[in-house]
């Protein structure tokens, strides 16, 4: 078999979302075929279903929310089949949308030219007002307990001193039902990926008040995930898959190709949304989905540590993990570098980077002896996060308190000298 592939027929799962584009492009534009892979895409209706099928081996792998493989490896997701990722499929692209009714109440507190920060402050004022009148707490939806959406929503709320566990009510709604739930008034806002913010906007149901790039710029959204065992048994197939997906991502970040990509998504009928919103979702713009530029596909281990911290901060994790062991195990920089070498993709030499300190793009040394320009990674709450001292960051947070004792975390992460 070509390149010594352990397996050339591969079934990969995806959800009907705009940021599944690298999978669709890799198949339709022949990138998978070029690496000897015959890929069947299976459109799943829930992240839980996709995860179960990957865990059970019905699917070889698939698009996953970036925190999912970490939750699986830590055993927090109830299935506990360890998973890994060697490639990030997309950055940015999510937004927080509120209903027109809620927005109308926020408007009084909004300055001209509202930002993600001032919108959160306005929401805090509306919540205080409502509390005085004895009204119910606003209800905000996200898509999955272990999702960047969930953590972004909480970070946005906490940035204006809104306690996500007490001042609002959070729930999970499938992306395709978000707009109708917002319209019916069952929820007051949501954090979701495209095209579901575009649909709300185009139907006049909601107003976008914050986007992922304002909350944490160029932060990871979806990854290509497989089980740890599968990765071990199929190193060559895994490498070929990642290489093809890097090529697809590279193709997608050429502006002229975005229109063709959107046409592809519409013609494949995989997304149950109006064509106009799919085209708008893939348009290149500030805060839009990033597939490739700024080493977007590279699985930074600092991102993994960040997600473990969110699981701790928001009481999803009841264990005291060793941060660098888990990041090393789940985010596979080594596999990425091997795959990147196959397709002439320069990649960062470091496994970790600081997060939050880049307000403008800056270069990082690359494996080819040159450098790669990384995009800004500033955070809405002004956090600067050093993966060498994750507990230092955790201690600074006002809202959210780990159920795991600080002492246990400390002892699980004592640096061995």
């Amino acid at each position: 078999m070509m390149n010594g592939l352990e397996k050339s027929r591969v079934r990969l799962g995806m959800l009907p979302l705009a940021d599944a584009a690298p999978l669709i492009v890799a198949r339709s534009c022949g990138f998978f075929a070029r690496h000897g892979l015959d890929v069947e895409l299976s459109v799943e209706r829930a992240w839980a279903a996709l995860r179960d099928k990957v865990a059970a081996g019905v699917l070889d792998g698939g698009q996953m929310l970036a925190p999912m493989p970490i939750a699986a490896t830590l055993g927090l997701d109830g299935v506990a089949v360890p998973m890994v990722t060697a490639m990030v499929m997309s950055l940015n692209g999510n937004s927080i949308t509120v209903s027109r009714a809620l927005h109308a109440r926020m408007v009084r507190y909004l300055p001209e030219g509202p930002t993600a920060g001032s919108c959160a402050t306005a929401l805090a004022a509306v919540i205080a007002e409502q509390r005085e009148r004895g009204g119910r707490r606003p209800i905000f939806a996200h898509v999955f307990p272990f999702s960047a959406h969930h953590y972004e929503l909480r970070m946005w709320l906490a940035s204006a001193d809104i306690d996500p566990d007490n001042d609002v009510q959070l729930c999970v709604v499938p992306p395709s039902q978000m707009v109708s739930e917002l319209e019916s008034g069952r929820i007051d806002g949501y954090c979701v990926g495209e095209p579901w913010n575009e649909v709300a906007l185009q139907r006049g149901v909601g107003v976008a008040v914050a986007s992922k790039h304002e909350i944490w710029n160029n932060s990871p959204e979806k990854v290509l995930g497989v089980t740890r065992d599968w990765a071990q048994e199929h190193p060559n197939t895994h490498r070929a898959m990642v290489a093809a997906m890097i090529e697809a991502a590279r193709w997608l970040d050429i502006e002229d190709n975005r229109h063709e990509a959107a046409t592809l998504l519409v013609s494949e009928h995989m997304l149950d949304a109006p064509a106009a919103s799919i085209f708008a979702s893939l348009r290149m713009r500030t805060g839009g989905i990033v597939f490739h530029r700024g080493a977007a596909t590279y699985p930074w281990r600092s991102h993994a540590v960040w997600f473990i911290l969110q699981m701790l901060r928001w009481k999803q994790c009841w264990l005291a993990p060793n941060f660098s062991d888990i990041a090393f195990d789940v985010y596979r920089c080594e596999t990425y570098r091997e795959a990147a070498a196959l397709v002439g993709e320069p990649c960062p030499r470091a496994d970790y980077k600081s997060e939050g300190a880049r307000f403008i793009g800056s270069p990082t040394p690359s494996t080819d002896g040159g450098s790669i320009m990384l995009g800004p990674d500033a955070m809405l709450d002004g956090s600067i996060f050093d993966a060498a001292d994750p507990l230092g960051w955790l201690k600074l947070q006002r809202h959210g308190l780990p159920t795991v004792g600080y002492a246990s975390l400390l002892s699980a992460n004592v640096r061995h000298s």
Partner: protein
Amino acid sequence: MKHANRGLRVMLVDDDQARLAMMEQALVAEGHVIVVRLDAQADLLAGVTLHQPDVIFIDVDAPSRDTLESLGQIHRERPRPIVLFAARSDAETAHRAVHAGVSAYVVDGLHPTRLSALLDVAIARFEVHQALSRELSAANARLADQRDIEKAKGMLMKRRKIDEDEAYGMLRKMAMDRKQRIGDYARLLLAASDLL
């Protein structure tokens, strides 16, 4: 021990009326109570809060499965076992999932008398998972205790120039005086020494 789990409060979630009826009949015949039947678009959180089921049956491919995942997170103190069922065409999913221990799957068209046995399997597996999570936490804590007690002892021996037994005695007395577990106190000492 045949069907230890009788009289369970069951919530059924599906859009397929025929399949619902088949499951309901089989479960009721085994002495279980169907507290609510919902279609896949319904508000599952409200359904669970209102009807307090012991176990939930849901289609493996229902979009609202992600909502149930969050339920497991919210109600960690009282999570509920979930039985997934799949269309007959998706039997591969079911068989592999049962084999991999993902969850208990019921395949559509399965003989109704097997439903209750599968329910027992689902609950047993759920309980094993819960126990494992607890054990894992406890085992981690024990390991951390051992490691930190050793480290704290070493630190005391070096700083106070005393032998191992003396160091352990001192650590134990200090912990007892403060009414703390020796492992926790060792960690406090280490954390404090990190700051010096």
